């Protein structure tokens, strides 16, 4: 087994000063949404953390998650993390291909048995294994084989976390999420379509820093990033409270930057860090650009009604069924009245 250097050693080797390291720890804390008071503990932990092996599996996906990740302005703080991990298998990013690539995967699995991380993007088709294969191996077989010796599995993106677009109604491939198949290993879901790149790297650095699974919410998402709704953190929230809403995409309210609730914003029911971490190196996020949140980090977000349908809109059922209920009401009422009158008539006769 080859020596895996600690992060402290890696940074030292790169000539990073202690001041630089403190800066790094501060930004890491910020990234992990940890309070600044945690910085000394982070520093201690990171110094002694060892570089883990990572195997990245891509199934039914669009590579958008990888695109997002590689847009996270490498080499930066996040880049450092990637220096600190050993990405031993990734279709898109690795140089090796074919049998060499598969050999690399097996080698990494053997070398780091019980301690490597498996990252998955894309959903797994269960209707027919032939729907998606890599090197002749079905997605299902590859996943199950690879996770066997893993310390934990990270499902990157909404497809891996919840089934995503392939799993949307009518789900022709029988797509399922990682957590539907992997039940004996910790699964961390980092959903989003795509997930915020900083969030992806932060989850990895959290694992790296503390060596354990972060606190997760009921959907298996790290609470550090998915603990608040977009709505709670939205800078337009004051307008919601004042009842100031954009009614269409080009009206006065939209131009004044009012709340997009009525335009279908799913912020109130969507847990993600977009409103604070933002996108494109902190430039903006959809609501800031004037578009309602689609709720892409929520389970089955494709099937939750129209993107531009306001959140509070209920489904009242079809007019025909309501009319049917009305007809039933008339019938029941008539029967009740007839029964009442029959009793009256009977009593009158008896009396």
């Amino acid at each position, binding site marked *: 087994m080859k020596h895996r250097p600690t992060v402290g050693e890696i940074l030292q080797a790169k000539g990073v000063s202690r001041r630089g390291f403190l800066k790094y720890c*501060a930004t890491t804390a910020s990234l992990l949404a940890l309070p600044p008071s945690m910085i000394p503990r982070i520093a201690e932990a990171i110094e002694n953390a060892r570089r883990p092996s990572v195997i990245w599996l891509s199934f039914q996906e669009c590579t958008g998650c990888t695109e997002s990740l590689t847009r996270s302005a490498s080499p*930066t703080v996040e880049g450092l993390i990637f220096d600190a991990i050993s990405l031993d298998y990734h279709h898109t990013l690795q140089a090796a291909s074919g049998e060499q690539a598969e050999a690399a995967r097996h080698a990494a699995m053997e070398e780091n048995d019980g301690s490597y991380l498996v990252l998955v993007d894309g959903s797994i088709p269960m209707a027919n294994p032939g729907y998606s294969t890599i090197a002749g191996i079905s997605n299902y077989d590859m996943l199950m084989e690879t996770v066997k010796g893993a310390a934990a599995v990270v499902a990157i993106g909404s497809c891996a976390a919840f089934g995503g677009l392939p799993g949307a109604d009518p789900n022709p491939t029988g797509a399922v999420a990682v957590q539907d198949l992997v039940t004996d290993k910790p699964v961390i879901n980092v959903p989003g379509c795509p997930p915020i790149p900083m969030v992806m790297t932060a989850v990895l650095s959290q694992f790296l820093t503390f060596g354990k699974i972060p606190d997760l919410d009921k959907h298996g998402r790290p609470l550090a990033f998915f603990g608040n709704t977009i709505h709670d953190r939205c800078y337009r929230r004051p307008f919601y409270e004042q009842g100031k809403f954009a009614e269409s995409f080009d009206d006065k309210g939209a131009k004044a*930057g009012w709340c997009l609730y009525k335009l279908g914003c799913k912020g109130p029911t969507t847990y993600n860090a977009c409103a*604070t*971490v933002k996108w494109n190196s902190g430039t903006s996020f959809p609501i800031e650009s004037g578009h309602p949140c689609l709720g892409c980090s929520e389970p089955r977000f494709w099937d939750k009604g129209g993107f531009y349908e306001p959140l509070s809109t209920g489904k009242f059922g079809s007019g025909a069924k309501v009319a049917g209920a009305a007809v039933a009401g008339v019938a029941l009422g008539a029967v009740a009245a007839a029964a009442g009158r029959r009793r009256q008539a009977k009593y009158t006769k008896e009396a």
Partner: protein
Amino acid sequence: MTSIDEIGVQVEATHGNVRPILNEVIHAIDRLLDDNIPTTIDLAGLPFGPGELDELEATLGNGELVATLDALGSSRIRETTYPGVWWIEHRNVHDEVVGRYLEVTRLPEILCSQDADIMAGRARLRDAFE
């Protein structure tokens, strides 16, 4: 003028997110003076509307002291017009902002020379002149 400026979006000056932070700063100064406890506010964790960060920065203003740090990219450590309130901005090697903090303290920790660096420096000095 770029085409982006032609989009008819007006930025409303305030969404009301600045005032609570200023309040928090005042409380932090109280803590510093009364109990000698420094406070760090991570601005990344707070919701800001367009222009509000600039508004906050302008409100706090520039004080007497600015320091730059060159480690893993540049950093600016600047005291605001309110002594004890420091505006700290970390950038990466691509000069992109990776962290913004308000520190309410007498001297931000990052400005102090670190023992590890002092020792490394001493070693280098010895190597060079002994």
